[in-house]
């Protein structure tokens, strides 16, 4: 008996070592590519650092400066608007499509692939360039409107419209949450629907009273992921505004402003402080999501 136990322990220890060998590349990446730069940026956030000279410690000055920086405030406002509008729209659209596809359409796998495609491309430079062309003054949208006698609209150069085009682009990349919703919808027990049907519940009632409550963990998962992703959006605004965040800072995403400060204005200390504020803010928003989850997310093992 004791021989058996010790042999099992030795085996387990051997497997543990093997696991560590295979984990080593990831651990090295975590330390050198994530953790160390993170610590370095924390230090830099308390310095005046232009990348070319040695960093100079300035205490909380970078954080204090943010309070009086009108462009920081613009970037926060633009990013919040973007997140608050595009994330719910994207999730609603993804859920709608998932519900439709879940009905067993012919050629389902084709539609699934086709709808997922924009998610793969959405954050890429190529798609942002295409978007710029589509919404440009002589672009596809204005040409289409022209067919109906509508005068060309300034989509990208009008401060009141420019952000909307980026929101539409984000909503268009609904494929990823849609696939996750689709997987969640497949897990809802069929007998619940059958029982509801017997009780005379219609389609809308079944959706609100069975589908939605049953997939709230999936909705929650998508909400957290998409919120974090949207706070970090960068490429689309950078390409479409040519890196300026214009017109009139209407597409100045937080990360774009951070990039401008770090790599155009060479204020890496201030950029690091901005990055830490974003990290902390995203952490708080995610924590709030988790706190509120107990009021609306239902897990199968709960009463």
């Amino acid at each position: 008996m004791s021989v058996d136990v010790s042999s099992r322990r030795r085996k387990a220890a051997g497997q543990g070592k093997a696991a560590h060998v295979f984990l080593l590349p990831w651990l090295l990446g975590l330390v050198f590519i994530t953790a160390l730069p993170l610590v370095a940026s924390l230090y830099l956030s308390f310095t005046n650092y232009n990348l070319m000279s040695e960093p100079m410690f300035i205490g909380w000055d970078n954080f204090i400066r943010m309070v009086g920086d009108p462009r920081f405030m613009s970037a926060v406002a633009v990013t919040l608007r973007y997140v608050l509008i595009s994330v719910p729209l994207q999730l609603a659209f993804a859920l709608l499509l998932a519900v439709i596809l879940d009905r067993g359409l012919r050629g389902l796998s084709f539609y699934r692939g086709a709808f997922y495609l924009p998610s793969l491309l959405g954050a890429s430079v190529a798609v942002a360039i295409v978007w710029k062309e589509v919404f440009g003054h002589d672009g596809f949208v204005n040409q289409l409107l022209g067919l109906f006698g509508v005068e060309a609209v300034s989509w990208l150069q009008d401060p009141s419209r420019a952000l909307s085009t980026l929101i539409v682009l984000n909503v268009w990349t609904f494929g990823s949450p849609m696939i996750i919703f689709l997987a969640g919808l497949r897990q809802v027990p069929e007998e619940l629907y059958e029982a509801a049907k017997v009780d005379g519940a219609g389609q809308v009632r079944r959706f609100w009273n069975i589908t939605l409550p049953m997939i709230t963990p999936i909705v929650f998962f998508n909400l957290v992921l998409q919120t974090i992703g949207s706070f970090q959006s960068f490429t689309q605004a950078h390409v479409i505004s040519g890196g300026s965040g214009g017109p009139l800072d209407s597409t100045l995403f937080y990360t774009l402003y951070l990039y401008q400060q770090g790599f155009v204005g060479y204020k890496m200390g201030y950029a690091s402080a901005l990055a830490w504020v974003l990290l902390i803010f995203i952490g708080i928003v995610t924590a709030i999501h988790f706190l509120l989850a107990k009021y609306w997310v239902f897990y199968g093992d709960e009463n």
Partner: protein
Amino acid sequence: MNIDRRTFLAVSGLAGLGLGLAACGVKQPSSGGSNDVSLRYGWWGNTIRQRTYETAFETFTTDHPHVTVQPEFAEYAAFQERMTTQIAGRTAPDLFWIASAQVLSYYKAGIYHDDLDKIETLDLSNFTPEQLESFKIDGKLNTVPLAVTAPVVRFNETFLDEAGATLPDEASTGWSWDGLAEFLIDYTKDAPEGRVGIAHNAQQDLTFESWLRQHGQQLWNEEGTVGFDADGLGGWLEWWEKLRKAGATLSLSEQEGPGMDWALAGDKTLMTFGNANHIADHAKMFPDYTFQLRGMPVLPDAAAGYTFGFMNRLTIYSGIDPDLLADAGRFLSFNLNHEAMLTPTLSLGAPVSGKQLEAAFDVASADEQKMLRIVQHNNAQESKPRYEAPAGTGTWRDIMTRTIEEIVLGGMGVKEASQKMIEGIQDEIAQVS
């Protein structure tokens, strides 16, 4: 051969460790064999420029077979980004171009090789002593100019002929800012196919600088700060507002922002302001049209010595391996003096030395010859000193873009916007000093 799991894991681990160490220890191929050397050369532009430069470098490596040139090329913005991180990591290329906004920032960071004139293999004999003196920063020859260009008015001669119009005579007082504005408004009234007089190009830096110098002001001054006041800037912005309100410019929407997109503006406008060297690339985009260049309009009482040329600078990295310095000097000489470099240089402007400029006419295209003539004419004029952008002004063009947007899209008054722009730039300078 039987390999058990334990052996496999041990071998995998050791191989991974070995690869990791090898990767960490990759040596830059700065010097390969006993005499073989490799020089890293950093520059920016479009793919055509990249190709012409790389082709020319083959001539150098054929003449100097022990040297390999490692090109580090990127589009302008990406190049600046990479340079900054390379400077931070003390791995800047051995030779590199310097963007106008970074000349003094890089100088402050101490990345130029001081006393280039003391490198024996560097031949500076094509420059006059006065020219060499004028390139110095703080009395040290730490950069050399590759090419010189000038602010110009570029107009579409085909459109002008189609409209049966004639530009005000350059030699007369009609070729003034007011005269040109009047002409553009007139042209727009009768222009066919909805064309307008000019692209909205208020943020074009060299032409703005020409305006300032004619008004007795500077873009940057000797003290390393903003060289213009709200009146100088405001006058420039007012000039554009007058044209815009008269419908003589493209709207920002039509040209996709204040940073005019020539591909969109080229066949909608009679003229644009720009750098003389841009004609070669821009004319190729519209091969059906003939483009001509003119000097900037002139104030009737323009300040003496307002004419200027803008020079692109090249240097050797202060951290270069001393063993590479002699070959770096040879390669720098090649860039400045060799006939194989004339064609690539034309994408930047005219060669700076008079001898090279003359030689460039033989290899220049018809459009490039127009550029050479303008620069040659410019060189012959009296010119007051011009000062480089001080450290911290890397974002001044972005601030100007926002200022234009605030006036055109935000309805802000020119006076208020001008004051705000100057304060914004001063604030940026103050943050690094």
